[in-house]
C-alpha cells in the first residue's frame, strides 16, 4: 500500500492551499474530498442549464497575494476581476452609491451629507492604517501568551513591538475596533444613516450578531483587510466564480505532484500510540500517511474524525464550546434579463457592482431581531451581485445570474428547517428585492435557495457557519479554535488542522492553509 507523506482531509480552498505548499516542498500529498468536486464552499455549479451559480461564497478579496504568486495561480486560470461599486437603495426611493472613482463617490456622499463626505476620507485613511496594523498578524502563527517557549516569546515580543510602533492614536482606534459594535464605531464618524447601515453590514457577515452588538466592529475590519494589488478593501470577482479559485489552486497542487481524490469522504483518522498514521475512508478503505491534516471545521476535525478518548477532556470541552451559529443563507437565481431598481432605473454600470439591501441601521438591526428569536428575517439584509455582468461566461449570452447573500437565516430555526420553510425564506428574499425592483420576480427562470442547514449538508460546515466558526473575539488569534492549540498542531501528534476554523479565519483567504503548511514543513512534514 502506498504511504503518503501527508493526507489532507477536505478539498476546500484551504485544504488545497496546504496540499499545494506541501507538494511544492516535494512531499507526496493526497487530498481527499467527500464531494464529487473540489472547492468546499468555493464552488461554481451549473444548477440550471447554461447558468453557473457561485453556490456559496461569491466574491474574492481576502485571498492572500503571496499565495497567488507562490502558486502561480494566474497560470492555472485564476483571473480576479474588479467589482467596483455598491448601490444601496433607500426606502424613500433615493439611493446611496459608492463608485470606483473616488471623486465621484465623494460627490455622491456630499449629496447626503457634506460633513460625511469629508469624514469619509479620514475614515478611509484610518481603516487603511488599521488594516496595515493587522496585516502582519494574518501572516503569523499566533503565539501563546501563557507560554514561555522561545518561539512564543519571540512572537509576543514581535507583536508587542509592532503595536507599540503604531502610536497612541492608532492603537486606541484598534482597541475600539476590537471591542465596539460596528454601529457605535461608525457613529463616531458619520451622520448619514444609510451610509452607516451599509458600512455596518460588513460587520455582521457570517456572525450571529446585529450591527449594534459589540464585537461586530472587528468583523468590519476583517472585511477591510482584503487586498488586491496592494490596495486594501478592494473586492473582486473571480472569472468563472469562486469555484475557479479552487480549481486554480487544485491545478497548481497537481502541477507540484499532489494527488486529489474526489468522492472520497473520510470517516476516521487512524491514531496509534497517540500519533496519526492515516485515515479510514467512508467506503472502509484505509490509507496511511506520515501526517494527516484536517481542513474541516474544528467540530468535525476533533469530535467526528477522532474518538474523544484520543484527546484531552478539557480540549474536547473547549471545542464543544466553539460557536458556529450559522446565520447566512444564499439565494441564487437564473434571470431572463436584469432587474431595474426603482432608485436608479434602467440597466447600467450599477449592475456591474453590488447592490446592498441595507437602507437603514434600524432595518438591519430588525433583520437581526427576527433571527434572535429563531425566525429568518422577514426583510433581510442582502448583498446582491450579478456575476454574469462581470464575467459574461456565467450565463448564456444576454441572460444573467444573480447571487444574493442573505442575512439572517438562523441555523436553529424555530421548529427546524423544512422544505416549506426554505421556500418561505426564498419568498421573503425575492419579495424584498421586488419591493426595490418592481417587476424583478417575472424575470426569474430558476431559483436556488440555500439555508444554513443546506450549507452544512452540502459543504459539511457545522451549523452552516461560512467562516467554519464564528469570527467572534473570543474565537480569534490564539483562541482559534481553542486556547493552546492555535498553532495548527493538535493534541494528537502528526495530526494538523488547516481550515478556516484556525487563525486567521474565514473568507477565501487561504492564509490558514498556508500557515498550516509552513508549520508542518517546519515540523519535518511527515517524511
Amino acid at each position, binding site marked *: 500500500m502506498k504511504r503518503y507523506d501527508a493526507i489532507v482531509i477536505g478539498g476546500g480552498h484551504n485544504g488545497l492551499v496546504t496540499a499545494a505548499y506541501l507538494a511544492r516542498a516535494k512531499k507526496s500529498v493526497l487530498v481527499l474530498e467527500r464531494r464529487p468536486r473540489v472547492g468546499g464552499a468555493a464552488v461554481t455549479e451549473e444548477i440550471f442549464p447554461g447558468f453557473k451559480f457561485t453556490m456559496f461564497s461569491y466574491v474574492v478579496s481576502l485571498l492572500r497575494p503571496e499565495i497567488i504568486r507562490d502558486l502561480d495561480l494566474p497560470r492555472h486560470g485564476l483571473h480576479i*476581476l474588479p467589482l467596483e461599486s455598491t448601490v444601496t437603495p433607500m426606502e424613500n426611493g433615493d439611493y446611496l452609491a459608492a463608485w470606483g472613482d473616488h471623486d465621484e463617490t465623494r460627490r455622491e456622499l456630499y449629496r447626503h451629507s457634506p460633513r460625511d463626505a469629508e469624514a469619509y476620507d479620514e475614515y478611509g485613511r484610518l481603516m487603511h492604517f488599521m488594516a496595515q496594523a493587522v496585516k502582519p498578524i494574518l501572516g503569523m502563527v499566533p503565539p501563546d501568551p501563557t507560554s514561555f517557549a522561545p518561539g512564543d516569546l519571540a512572537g509576543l515580543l514581535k507583536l508587542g513591538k509592532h503595536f507599540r510602533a503604531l502610536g497612541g492614536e492608532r492603537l486606541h482606534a484598534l482597541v475600539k475596533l476590537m471591542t465596539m459594535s460596528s454601529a457605535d464605531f461608525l457613529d463616531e464618524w458619520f451622520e448619514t444613516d444609510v451610509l452607516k447601515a451599509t458600512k455596518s453590514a460588513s460587520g455582521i457577515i457570517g456572525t450571529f450578531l446585529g450591527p449594534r452588538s459589540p464585537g461586530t466592529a472587528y468583523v468590519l475590519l476583517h472585511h477591510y483587510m482584503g487586498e488586491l494589488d496592494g490596495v486594501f478593501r478592494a473586492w473582486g470577482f473571480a472569472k468563472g466564480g469562486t469555484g475557479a479559485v479552487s480549481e486554480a489552486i487544485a491545478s497548481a497542487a497537481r502541477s507540484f505532484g499532489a494527488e486529489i481524490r474526489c468522492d472520497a469522504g473520510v470517516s476516521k483518522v487512524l491514531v496509534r500510540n497517540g500519533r496519526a498514521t492515516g485515515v479510514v475512508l467512508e467506503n472502509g478503505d484505509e490509507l496511511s500517511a506520515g501526517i494527516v491534516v484536517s481542513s474541516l471545521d474544528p467540530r468535525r476535525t476533533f469530535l467526528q474524525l477522532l474518538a474523544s478518548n484520543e484527546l484531552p477532556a478539557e480540549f474536547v470541552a473547549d471545542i464543544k464550546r466553539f460557536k458556529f451559529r450559522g446565520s447566512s443563507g444564499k439565494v441564487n437565481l437564473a434571470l431572463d434579463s436584469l432587474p431595474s431598481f426603482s432608485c436608479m432605473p434602467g440597466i447600467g454600470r450599477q449592475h456591474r457592482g453590488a447592490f446592498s439591501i441595507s437602507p437603514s441601521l434600524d432595518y438591519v438591526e430588525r433583520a437581526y431581531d427576527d433571527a434572535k428569536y429563531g425566525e429568518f428575517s422577514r426583510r433581510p439584509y442582502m448583498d446582491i451581485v450579478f456575476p454574469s455582468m462581470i464575467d459574461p461566461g456565467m450565463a448564456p449570452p444576454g441572460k444573467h445570474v444573480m447571487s444574493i447573500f442573505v442575512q439572517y437565516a438562523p441555523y436553529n430555526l424555530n421548529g427546524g428547517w423544512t422544505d416549506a420553510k426554505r421556500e418561505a425564506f426564498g419568498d421573503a428574499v425575492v419579495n424584498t428585492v421586488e419591493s426595490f425592483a418592481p417587476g424583478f420576480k417575472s424575470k426569474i427562470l430558476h431559483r436556488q435557495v440555500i439555508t444554513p442547514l443546506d450549507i452544512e449538508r452540502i459543504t459539511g460546515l457545522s451549523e452552516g457557519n461560512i467562516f467554519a466558526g464564528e469570527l467572534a473575539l473570543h474565537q480569534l488569534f490564539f483562541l482559534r479554535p481553542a486556547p493552546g492549540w492555535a498553532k495548527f498542531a493538535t493534541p494528537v501528534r502528526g495530526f494538523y488542522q488547516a481550515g478556516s476554523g484556525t487563525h486567521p479565519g474565514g473568507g477565501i483567504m487561504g492564509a490558514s492553509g498556508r500557515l498550516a503548511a509552513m508549520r508542518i514543513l517546519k515540523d519535518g512534514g511527515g517524511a
Partner: protein
Amino acid sequence: MSLRTTPFHPRTGPLSEGQAWRRWAGYVVASAYELSHDREYHAIRNSAALFDVSPLYKYLVTGRDAARLLDHVVTRNVGKAKVGQVLYTPWCDNEGKQIDDGTISVLGEQTFRMTSADPTLRWLHLNSSGLDVTIQDVSETTAAVSLQGPSSREILQLAAERDLSALKYFRLTSAKIRGIPVTISRTGYTGDLGFEVWVDASQAVPLWDALIETGTPYGITPAGMLALDVARIEAGLLLIEVDYFSSRHALIEAQKSSPLELGLGWTVATDKARYNGQAALDAERTRGPAWQFTGLTVDWDSLEQLYAEVGLPPRLPSQAWRTSVPIYDRSGNKQLGYATSGGWSPLLKRYMALAHLGSEHAPGTEVRMELTVEHRRKQAQAHVTPLPFFNPERKRA
C-alpha cells in the same frame, strides 16, 4: 490645423468619460474611455476589448514585382508567404539596424497591405526603382478595429455570419459584416485570441455599431491605449520610440538596435535573396548579438521591503510606464542595461518590465532595478524572465 480624428470618432468621441485622448500618428485615440482603464484592461483577458487602430500607416502594394519589393525591404520571406497569410516583420537599414516593424497581409498573388508605425511611403519608393509595382498610401481610406480577448471569435463569427474556427493565427479572410465588405485578420497586439477588422473608412461607423450590438451580450468593451499598453507588456511585444528607436530617427549610433538584439531573430530570414541589412545581420548572427530584449520580474518581497522601510505598503504603478530605468547586477554596482517599459500585471499579480540587457544574462539571473521610493533612489531585486509573461493557449488554438 489641429489633430485629426479617426473614422470611428462619431462613436468613440461620446464614449470618453474623462476626455483622455492620446496622440497617435497625427490622430487622437482614446487613452481610456472610462475614468480608469481597469475594466478595459480586464476585458482583454476576460471577454473582448474593441480598439480603434485606424491611425496605423497602411500601404497597398500591388503589381508583378510587389513581393520582390517587399522582400527587398523587410527581413521575413514574403515570396514564400501564401495568399491569406499575415507576416509580422521588422525592416532595417543597410547596417541591419531596425527602422520599424509592422505587418504584411498577403491579400492576393500581387496584392499586399503593409502596416507601419512610421510613414514608410518614401522608403518603399526608394527601394522600388526598376520594379513593376504600384504603392498606394491607404492610411486615410482604410479604417481598422482590433477585437481582442477570449470572446472575440464568438462575437466576430456571429457578426460575420461565418465560421471563423478555421482561421488560424496570423491568417486573414475576407468577409461581410451586415453587408459591409471587410478583411478579418487573426492578429493583434495583446498576445491573446484576437482579430483585426479592416474596412473602408466610409463604412467605419456602421461596422462599429454592428460589432457593439453583436458583442454586448458577450461583454464587448471599447478600450483605449492605456489598457493595451499593459496587455502588450504581458505579451512581451515591443513598441517603437519606447522600447527601441527607429534607426532613421536615432541621433547617435548607440540609439540603434538590430532585430537580433530585440528578440526578433525569428523574423530574420536566412533563405532569401538580398534584402536591406542582410550582410550586416548575417555577420551579427554569426558573432552573436551583443544585446538581448528580455522580461524582468520585480520580486514582490523586495518591493514590499523597500516600502516597509519608509512605513508604506508597496506602491504599484497604476499605469504602464515607458521611461528608461537602469538595471544593475546583483551587487547593485555595475549597470547591466536598462528597462524601457514596465508595469503591474493585474492578471499575473506581478511587477513586470521589458529590458535591454547584455546577451550573457540568462533567464533566472538576479538583477536589480532602480526604483524611486518616497523621492529616494532604491534598487529592487528582480529576475530575468523569458518573454512573454503571458501566453494563453487560446492565442493560437
